[in-house]
């Protein structure tokens, strides 16, 4: 099956059809998606600002990351679920939307950026945990993360405008 047929088949499923034809399903999914976005970006921003040397509500960067990451993950999963359902309802249309495709690309980059941080500067966090300012690698991770997630938000909003 080629991609186009797959997307059409996805759109034709009972679930996707119900969402597409319902008056309240899409607004409800969008609303939950926005709440998820707010928590993803909000929690990531607190950590990223800490990586830039702007302290949050505690001194230790490690403890901050540990206590906020569960929220980030739960919110991100919520966004993936709501996003997937919205995508399914109009799969063929979204797959051709450049803003949507760029947004997906940015999400991949954001994930890669996080992985680089976790395998790099984060491994040595005991050396800079309560130090301000943090080391260059941590600061770079903070800036790049903020830039990538801000792009994700902008691209996500622009989907509806192209």
């Amino acid at each position: 099956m080629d991609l186009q047929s797959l997307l059409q088949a996805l759109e034709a499923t009972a679930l996707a059809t119900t969402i597409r034809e319902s008056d309240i399903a899409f607004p409800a999914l969008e609303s939950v998606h926005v709440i998820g976005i707010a928590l993803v970006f909000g929690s990531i921003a607190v950590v990223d600002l800490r990586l830039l040397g702007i302290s949050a509500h505690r001194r230790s960067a490690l403890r901050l990351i540990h206590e906020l990451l569960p929220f980030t993950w739960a919110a991100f999963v919520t966004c993936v679920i709501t996003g997937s359902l919205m995508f399914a309802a109009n799969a063929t249309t979204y797959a051709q939307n450049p803003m949507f495709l760029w947004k997906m690309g940015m999400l991949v980059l954001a994930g890669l950026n996080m992985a680089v941080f976790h395998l790099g500067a984060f491994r040595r966090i005991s050396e800079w945990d309560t130090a301000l300012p943090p080391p260059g690698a941590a600061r770079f991770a903070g800036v790049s993360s903020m830039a990538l997630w801000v792009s994700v938000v902008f691209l996500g909003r622009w989907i509806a405008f192209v």
Partner: protein
Amino acid sequence: MSSLPVIDWLYATPVSSGIRDLLWVVPTVQSVHILAIAVIFGSAVISDLRLAGVFATDESVRGVVRRYYPWMRAALLLLLGTGVIMAVGEPDRVLVNSVFWLKMGLVVLAFSMAWRVRRPYLRPLATSHGTEPQPVRAFAWLSIALWCVVIICGRWIAYAI
């Protein structure tokens, strides 16, 4: 669709036309609005969960509340600013919309409540408790729920036209 004179007047102003004619303005302003939502909601959730006694309990309530309140206030100003731009640009979409006015009422309620609950901790000499007294904890959870309803109303504006 209604056309109150003030809306027609506003719609015809150069500012309003400019916002609509420059196609990048509305989506960009909306995106900034969403980022500010993330700041206010994230700050509210963190400080409300501390007030409720379920998050960062090793840090003082006073410290957590004082850390995030300025961000909530700054985000609110940015939300109002971007909101005004959106209302000026599309007054016909927003100003006769009952969901929009419901949202405005809930924003006033949510922020007044948030400020009222935080006020004791924002004063120079704040008392600290082992656990915050009950009204405070209940209001903290209510606050989180209210902000969620505000967000839902925000999205629903587009569907109530």
